[in-house]
């Protein structure tokens, strides 16, 4: 019997699918942004003060890391399109390393918070007041969810690198790389909003 020989390849469709998925991710975070905006409106002073607790420098470093990594992954696609497979691979690896750096940084940042008895459900937070509880609740939930997306993004990028290695992603067939890149940019996009909302606006 004839197997399913009809292999249908449509890069535009794959990209469209990826974008649609990105929309849902944006709206997923969108839900949290709604919660953020309401609570910020309800507790302006507490949010202001709690924001000062966060370490701006850490946030800034992570912002720069993500922006640079976003560029390297975009360049990796350019390289692939131009047929420079090795360069593409190098840029991808740099992106992955930057992503790991982000996570390490995040680990220390969260660790410092835990040392200050700031974690969801801590009694210290409860004494600070409801505004602070909510602020840090949001902080942990949103940056946590974001970190989770970084991890997923990294897994995808490693997978892409593996495909490039195997030559299953190559200059005439690189939509997987493009989609991986899109996902990584999404992670960056969200951080662009998280950074000012939590670290900067006092």
């Amino acid at each position, binding site marked *: *019997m004839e*197997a*399913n020989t*009809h292999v*249908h390849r*449509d890069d*535009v*469709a*794959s990209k*469209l*699918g990826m974008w*649609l*998925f990105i*929309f*849902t*991710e944006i*709206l*997923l*975070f*969108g*839900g*949290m942004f*709604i*919660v953020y905006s*309401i*609570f910020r409106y*309800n*507790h302006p002073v507490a949010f202001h003060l709690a924001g000062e607790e966060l370490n701006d420098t850490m946030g800034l470093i992570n912002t720069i890391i993500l922006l640079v990594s976003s560029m390297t992954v975009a360049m990796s696609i350019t390289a692939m399109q131009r047929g420079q497979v090795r360069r593409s691979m190098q840029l991808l690896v740099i992106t992955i390393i930057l992503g790991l750096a982000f996570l390490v940084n995040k680990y220390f940042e969260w660790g410092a918070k835990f040392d200050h008895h700031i974690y*969801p*459900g801590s009694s210290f937070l*409860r004494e600070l*007041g*409801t*505004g602070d*509880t*909510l602020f840090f*609740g*949001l902080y*942990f*939930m949103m940056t946590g*969810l974001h970190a989770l997306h970084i991890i997923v993004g990294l897994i995808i990028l490693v997978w892409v690198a593996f495909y490039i290695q195997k030559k299953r992603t190559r200059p005439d067939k690189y939509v997987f790389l493009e989609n991986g890149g899109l996902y990584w940019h999404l992670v960056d996009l969200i951080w662009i909003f998280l950074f000012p909302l939590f670290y900067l606006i006092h």
Partner: protein
Amino acid sequence: MSETAAQLNFFQETQGRKGILAWILSTDHKRIGLMYMYTIMVFFIVGVLLGLGIKMELIAPGLTVMGPQAYNSFFTVHGVIMIFVIVIPGLPAIFGNFFLPIMIGAKDVAFPKLNLFSWYLFIIGIITVLISLFTFGGPPDTGWTFYAPYSFKTTTNMFPAVLGAFILGFSSILTGLNFITTIHRMRAPGMRWMKMPLFAWSIYGTGWIQLFATPIVGITLLMIIAERFLKIGFFDPALGGDPILYQHLFWIYSHPAVYIMILPAMGVISEIIPTFARKGIFGYNAVVISTMAIAIVGYFVWAHHMFTSGMSTTAQFVFSLLTFFVAIPSAIKVFNWVATLYKGSIRLEVPLIWALGFLFLFMIGGFTGLFLGAVATDVHVHNTTFVVAHFHYIIFGGMGSAFFAALHYWLPKMYGRMYNKYWATVGWATFFIGFNVLYFPMFILGYQGMPRRYYDYLDQFHGLNIVSTLGAFIMVAGIFVIILNLIRGARHGEQATMNPWEGRSLEWTVPSPPPLENFDEIPDLTKSSAHPA
């Protein structure tokens, strides 16, 4: 017309896999559609039995067949299964999967593997929900709305139920994504947007709602989980949270979700009525536009579920007004359907009977929705059995009728066999009578003030509750007849021809049942001037 005898149909074409593997490993959209159907049917029976249990308990005040804790779990699980497992995925996952690609002249959906993956997620989601029934604190008892703060205070086993709903949402997103991409990329040459069958359009509109609304409930359910385990405090007033915010987030999804349920149903009706009137639909453009209008406006009316929560008067004004606007596109559709019958040459076959039943029940459901949309009247009947009657009319009377209409319409195509028309009609009539006897009294009870989710009630509500319970038995008997007749038909019915109803859309140009990749050659419609379905 038919020189297709030699070709194997998709049942016979197992691609070298044996037994059940031919199903659960297959990426064929038709097999996946049927797998959804079998799964959903099984849970449909479970849901109906739970509904029957509810009615048994309500036949008399006080304890009749179960205690209050059991009752609360019954309606919660009934609601969760019916909404998340049956009506939201129902029509798109079964008939969307089976017929969308054929109708637009494609060999499969855009991402067949993802499609299979969605089904697996669906199963995992169901299993997760089921786990909640048998572990730790026992079945959840919060109502399908999971309102905070009760949902994280109850000692019952909420977590798996919520997680299951989250996974089911994910499955629904992926299905929507798949269909939208399919429609954008895989229409046959000449299948212009404005030539697309209306069912395909409705699936398209549904897909967008799935994409736009489902993530919000996803994150909301995650927050409920975080709330329960980490005491984050978003919705807990003791920690400064806001229970009303939870309601906003929940309904931002769950209102659009009701249009996820009804749009494909409307699509089915828009296929059936023209076929049996044997002419094109009246006002194709208007029907398409109203589909998209429902999808869009339907997103912005959610807070009509919260008129008594104490939200601001401004918000009540805005949401009530918007609610009335969302009724207009439905009105347009109803008028166009009726106008399609005008000067037709009508064959009163079983699917058309169901479609007419749909119209009647949907109208009652829709009109009572207007009472709920007006603030003054809603405040009186909110959370009474009036609301329960409203949505059973619109979901079962509407979406349910459309589901059975679709089954009777497409069964010959899916299985290549015909059911017994006499028993199908008897089944319908029993269902229709039972349905109205069951739910109509609930409008009156609600107006008299009987609250919903009430295990026990005052004596003055007794009479109508008895009537209602009797109706439930009549209706379930009808459903039994219908389903048995369909199963018998699918297995032993007479052979059906390729186009038993003389339908005009593409699925009627392929053999019954269709072969593995639907078409030998992708149809070319550039020259045909065929009127859209």
